[in-house]
């Protein structure tokens, strides 16, 4: 089964109907799938903290939101995660492209990769790392967990999970 389709099926099955995205090459397939689904309102944002603001509003309006972004965005969004999403106790699944891991062709991506888990840990954000395709079997349970506990939850998806970067 196509992994992007499986992930978006799980979003839909968990009533996630408002998704904001900031693009990443690895996430292109899942973003296309989000855009294609009539059950989901897809709103691209220009920066990840802006996207988290949109998600906070959507949640208060009765929708279940999610954000799709790169791990570099952890560096952009720490203040928003701490003073908005966590402070007001709001749920937010964060499907994250974990750039800078094995098979990464761009050296600079490693510079944020080495900080990613440490920052999420410092923020006490529950974090799951998808390395093999079968790891996505837990995605449905992770979404249920996120909306049970009203916390931001990170799902890091690395290049091995997505099957590499292709020819580069």
């Amino acid at each position: 089964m196509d992994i992007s389709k499986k992930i978006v099926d799980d979003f839909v099955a968990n009533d996630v109907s408002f998704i904001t995205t900031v693009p990443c090459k690895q996430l292109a397939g899942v973003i296309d799938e989000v855009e294609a689904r009539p059950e989901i309102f897809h709103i691209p944002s220009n920066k990840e903290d802006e996207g988290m603001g949109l998600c906070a509003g959507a949640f208060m309006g009765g929708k279940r939101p999610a954000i799709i972004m790169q791990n570099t965005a952890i560096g952009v969004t720490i203040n928003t995660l701490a003073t908005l999403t966590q402070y007001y106790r709001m749920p937010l699944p964060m499907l994250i492209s974990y750039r800078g891991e094995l098979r990464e062709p761009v050296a600079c991506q490693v510079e944020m990769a080495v900080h990613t888990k440490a920052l999420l840990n410092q923020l006490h954000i529950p974090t799951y790392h998808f390395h093999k395709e079968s790891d996505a079997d837990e995605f449905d349970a992770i979404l249920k967990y996120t909306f049970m506990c009203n916390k931001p939850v990170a799902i890091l998806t690395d290049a091995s999970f997505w099957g590499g970067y292709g020819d580069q």
Partner: protein
Amino acid sequence: MIRSEILREIAPILRDQLVVCNIGLPSQELHMIDDNAKNFYMLGTMGLSSSIGFGLALAQDKTVISIDGDGSVLTNFGTLPTIANNVTDNYILLIIDNGSYGSTGDQPTYAGKKTKLEDVAKACGCENVVVCQDVDTGKTLQAAIDSKKMTIIVSKCDSGNIKLPVITMDPVVIRDRFMKAVAS
């Protein structure tokens, strides 16, 4: 007029609407003038009033007013193209433009110099951009509500602050009572 005087004047209009209010003094002033469940006070996260309000407007049908400042819009310029390209007619962005960062000591903003936020909003694709003077904010806001068209209002006013206490209400209480007001 300064911002707190505008808020006092428009409070009777705001009272019937869902309001997302900017961090710092604007929220403290609104809280002091007319605290009610339809107000969502930002206690942190400078710049996101427009984004939170816009997400809320997209998620349900009631009118939402984001009260923002020129400094906060400058912090989150990316919000304007997002708003322009995803029109929802139950959304009003009220930018109180006093040309200064009021909550931090009235340091001047670029919006008080060469940068015109109304021109930026138009360049980003926003269609109903209205500039008004402070004394006309109430009637401009009411006209925007009545028009049922997504509107960006830039209200030009003087810089200046009043002394008032911080909001001590728990954020989860603010959020919970606001969500109940949204759903009611």
